[in-house]
């Protein structure tokens, strides 16, 4: 029996290229608390990541979320230790928002990251922005040379 591709080849039927999956914007928040005993103050560290990736099905979304979570946790710990000398001993929470279709249908390899530290001032939360940056998510595809 002919396969569909072979049939198309022999009968000169132009095969339709499968549509690429839509690019969606993934938004992840990684956060944790830390208590500074010297200052007697509670701090909440937040990291908001945003990246556009291709995902068609719910399984795709779940897979990308899982990968993002792994990388995000590592990045969060590493960044806080390196830049603020904070080692977190409490649970790190990772949450996702709904994925929306990206305006530009171009997948990204790096996530943009914004970071904040929250502290209690006069019984209210006060946010201070920390340096923003990028987090590597996937290796860039090579156009030439070895794959």
């Amino acid at each position: 029996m002919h396969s569909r591709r072979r049939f198309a080849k022999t009968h000169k039927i132009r095969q339709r290229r499968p549509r690429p999956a839509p690019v969606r914007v993934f938004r992840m928040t990684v956060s944790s608390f830390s208590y500074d005993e010297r200052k007697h103050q509670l701090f909440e560290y937040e990291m908001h990541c945003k990246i556009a990736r291709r995902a068609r099905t719910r399984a795709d979304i779940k897979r990308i979320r899982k990968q993002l979570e792994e990388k995000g946790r590592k990045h969060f710990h590493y960044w806080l230790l390196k830049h603020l000398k904070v080692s977190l001993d409490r649970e790190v929470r990772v949450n996702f928002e709904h994925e929306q279709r990206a305006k530009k249908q171009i997948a990204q390899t790096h996530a943009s990251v914004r970071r904040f530290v929250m502290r209690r001032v006069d019984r209210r939360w006060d946010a201070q922005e920390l340096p923003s940056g990028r987090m590597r998510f996937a290796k860039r595809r090579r156009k030439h040379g070895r794959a």
Partner: protein
Amino acid sequence: MAERKPLPLVWLLLIDLDIVVDKWWLQHYRRIVELVLESYGLNATAIRISPSRSKGYHVRIYLNKPVPSSFANMLQWLLLDDHGRVDFNRARINAGFDEWSKFFEDPRK
């Protein structure tokens, strides 16, 4: 010091209700939302209520005209948004974070 970019205006209110109530209570809630918005010269083009991940509901209110972020946060507080969330949102707005309103959800089916 570099000037901070003004936050974009908001068309959508996101409200986190942390309680499960009877359906007919939600109908009253919709009415109250419309009344509160009307008192500020606003209208809701649509009100969507969906169950949240853990308990309660997520409410999305689409406005007929955009409002500033801090005012939107106040409206969310008036419309029974989670109080801890409101305080965090206020802090994020003051720090100049444009995506200050967060709704954490599972992937859609």
